[in-house]
């Protein structure tokens, strides 16, 4: 009986998810306990309360999945829960108020998560119908911060009342949806009409137009919002999708060349980018280290933090973050540099563990894409996963001085409402694709 079999499979997938949530809950409880012990020298039952609240939130989300997406990947949500609770503990250790705020944003994020799933549970491919609306919405969102003052030379957020909102977080999803839909349509003509010229395969000109338009948009955004990090993320996601859609590495090379060209021009005319690169190359130069704006102080302190951590870390609550109320040693510890705090307190071991969790999420994301049967779903899952992976790479790479620093959040860990909401929507979309794919592949 197919119906019975399905039920058994459902129980298996969701039960696995439920069990996988246990480590996350233990982690959050143990983490809060550690912070309490460190701070007060006593173990308060408040840590258990925090753990319980978090467990309740996870259970609620789990029940939503059990009812709506019974076949979805059982590991994605617990992995994200581990990151989220880990981030919450880190924030709690940095500043209780931030953690409380972040916890509220988790509730909001889970509401968006549920709403996305409920709205698209029948068939997420309805998104394709609105692809131009979604693309336009995403671009408009990106332009919003231009209405306000820049922070550190980049237009990253805008403030609506008390809420600071980073539209790039939402826009990245909109752009992936648009590209997935557009490339589903054009991937064949792009390949079939391709011409070889000077050893490189070029896509046909008439279909190249829209792709050039995407490149132009990314460049324009780069110039308008002056945010290399977000641009890199968008463009990286775009190239990943073009590559997967066409299986032509030459298209990627052309794209990278174009992006490098744009970045080079921007580097020449905008001081922000130049400062970032200088600070990356010479973080300890006095001129840059002591610069009031756009210097290398942050990067240098980030490196000192990581050096302090060593292999095992200093332990929860032991990192030196600030002296007094107004003397930060490590600036932006709760957003851009939270990875440095992790490396400081939990050492190389803890930092690599966090990277591994991200890698597992990426693995589940790509697995979902491979299981999906239709092109749009494949491209959507690929794009969302690639953008997430790129975001981690951009911020961790910046914090560790692998690449110049550009301010994006560390997904699910950094403080920030828009980041939490956007990434939960991203997770919801991945689970939607996964549910359909796993249902269809099962005999």
């Amino acid at each position, binding site marked *: 009986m197919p119906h019975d079999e399905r039920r058994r499979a459902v129980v298996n997938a969701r039960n696995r998810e439920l069990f996988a949530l246990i480590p996350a809950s233990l982690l959050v409880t143990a983490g809060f306990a550690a912070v309490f012990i460190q701070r007060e020298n006593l173990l308060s039952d408040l840590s258990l309360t925090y753990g319980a609240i978090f467990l309740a939130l996870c259970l609620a989300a789990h029940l939503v999945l059990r009812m709506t997406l019974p076949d979805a990947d059982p590991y994605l949500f617990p992995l994200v829960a581990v990151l989220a609770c880990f981030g919450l503990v880190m924030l709690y250790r940095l500043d209780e108020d931030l953690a409380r705020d972040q916890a509220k944003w988790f509730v909001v994020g889970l509401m968006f998560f549920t709403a996305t799933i409920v709205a698209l549970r029948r068939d997420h491919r309805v998104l394709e119908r609105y692809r131009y609306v979604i693309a336009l919405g995403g671009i408009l969102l990106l332009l919003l911060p231009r209405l306000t003052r820049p922070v550190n030379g980049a237009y990253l957020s805008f403030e609506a009342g008390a809420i600071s909102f980073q539209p790039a977080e939402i826009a990245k999803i909109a752009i992936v949806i648009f590209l997935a839909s557009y490339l589903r349509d054009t991937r064949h003509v792009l390949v079939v009409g391709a011409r070889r010229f000077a050893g490189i395969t070029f896509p046909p000109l008439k279909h190249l137009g829209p792709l050039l338009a995407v490149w132009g948009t990314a460049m324009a955004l780069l110039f308008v919002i002056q945010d290399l990090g977000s641009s890199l993320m968008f463009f990286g996601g775009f190239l990943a999708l073009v*590559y997967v859609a066409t299986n032509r590495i030459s298209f990627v090379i052309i794209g990278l060349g174009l992006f490098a060209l744009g970045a080079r021009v921007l580097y020449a005319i905008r001081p922000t980018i130049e400062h970032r690169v200088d600070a990356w190359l010479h973080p300890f130069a006095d001129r840059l280290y002591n610069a009031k704006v756009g210097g290398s102080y942050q990067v240098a302190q980030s*490196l000192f933090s990581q050096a*302090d951590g*060593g292999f095992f870390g200093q332990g929860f609550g032991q990192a*030196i973050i600030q002296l007094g109320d107004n003397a930060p040693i490590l600036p932006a510890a709760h957003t851009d540099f939270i990875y440095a705090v992790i490396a400081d307190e939990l050492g190389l071991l803890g930092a690599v563990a966090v990277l591994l969790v991200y890698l597992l999420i990426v693995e589940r994301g790509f697995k979902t894409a491979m299981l999906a049967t239709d092109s749009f779903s494949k491209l959507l899952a690929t794009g969302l996963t690639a953008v997430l992976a790129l975001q981690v*790479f951009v911020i961790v790479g910046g914090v560790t001085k692998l690449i110049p620093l550009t301010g994006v959040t560390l997904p699910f860990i950094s403080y920030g409402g828009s980041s939490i909401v956007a990434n939960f929507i991203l997770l919801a979309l991945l689970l939607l694709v996964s549910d359909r794919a796993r249902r269809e592949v099962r005999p």
Partner: protein
Amino acid sequence: MNAPILKLFGLVLVLFAALAGMTSYNSVINAEEYRDNPKNKRPQIEQARVKRGVIRARDGSLLARSVKDPDDGLYRRRYSPRAKRFAHVLGYDYALTIGRAGLEKERNGALTGDGGELTSIVDDLSGKRKVGDSVITNLDSRAQRVALDALGGRRGSVVAIEPATGGVRVMASTPGYDPNGLSEPGVFPRLNRATTSPLFNRATQAGYVPGSTMKVITAAAALDSGRFTPDSAVSGKSPIIVSGVPLRNFSDEQFGSIPLTTALTHSVNTVWAQVAQKLGRGRMADYMERFGFGTDPPLDYPDAQMFASGVYDLERNALIPAASRRVDIGRVGIGQERLRVTPLQMATVAATVANGGVRMKPRITNRIVDEDGRTVQRIRAARAARVMSPRSAEQLTQMMSDVVREGTGTAAALQGIEVAGKTGTAEINIARGIDQPWFIGFAPRSNPKIAVAVTLENIVGGQGGTVAAPIAKQVMERLLR
């Protein structure tokens, strides 16, 4: 499309491996270099989290303690009002702003409880909060005040040492400063630029011309080498030619053939210059070295704040070996030439004679105790060198007693206690009459308890016997009470 997705995942693996690699480089491989970067204040902050031990005078009175700043949870140094007397010898601990100096720097390990890996691991495991050990010094705060009052605002220094143990009882340097508030914005740079050099510890850092106090070393070399006795007669006529230049006695006073004892009592330059010439460069250099010239004193104090006494090439600010042919050894024997000595060095000279010819290592620290008051480390008296035989030391003591009883040093004499000593008056600017008066000595003569060196800068119309000896008297009187 699955093949390119797999390749994409491969790329992500590579990128993440690079992230893990870079984190390893920062946290482990290159961590040492980042930790040692002077821009990295974390090690200092780490130490400021430990409750730093207190510093006390020998009578137990508190000189320095640490107070937790509730704002950032870090401990900050507070100096008691009487610590102002000891500003130079104590130094300061403002590691986050201007740094450390003096005893605070030298004993930083003990004060921060960094007593070795084993204890700290045990403390870590037992969850015991780290508290620094306390330093009990040999310093006497009342005698220190007597010394400062006696210097009376003039630039100079007083050092008093226990001959048998090397314990430093007084180490005064004027002008001084208030160690509290030193880290306030602008204070340190202003003091650092001040022409009177208030941050400078004149007791250990100042190189002064020793004048006739140097004759004690010449006398020690003369007696101990067996070439002279206290009764050996030498002509005291003035002037005589030394290294081609005429050398005169004070006030060009004439003496006949007089014994060394008399020559020391009246500080006859021509006699001691001849003695030094007869002993020769090699022997003079040997005894200077035995007294501790040519190297930083073995004091528990930062090397950067100590000056090695000796003959200097003044243009290059570099030591010249006393045995060098470039040195006018006759004038070295009477404390002229290009000799530069610290008050600490000259106090050590007096203490060595007092201690039967054995030079002890000077020690500011008496002992280190833990937070419960148990002694962790006692700084035992340590011999630095045997400079001369007990017999030579006894002969020299007798000669120096005569100086105070009936010679140039009578102003240092104490009621009922026999004092041995030697005055000195180095002429710094003959045209303007600017001198550097000195007195070194010890008491009681038969069983010495304290040895002192006193000197003052830029004194017009005063000599060692009239300016420095009375100060030495007051300090010894206070310490012998």
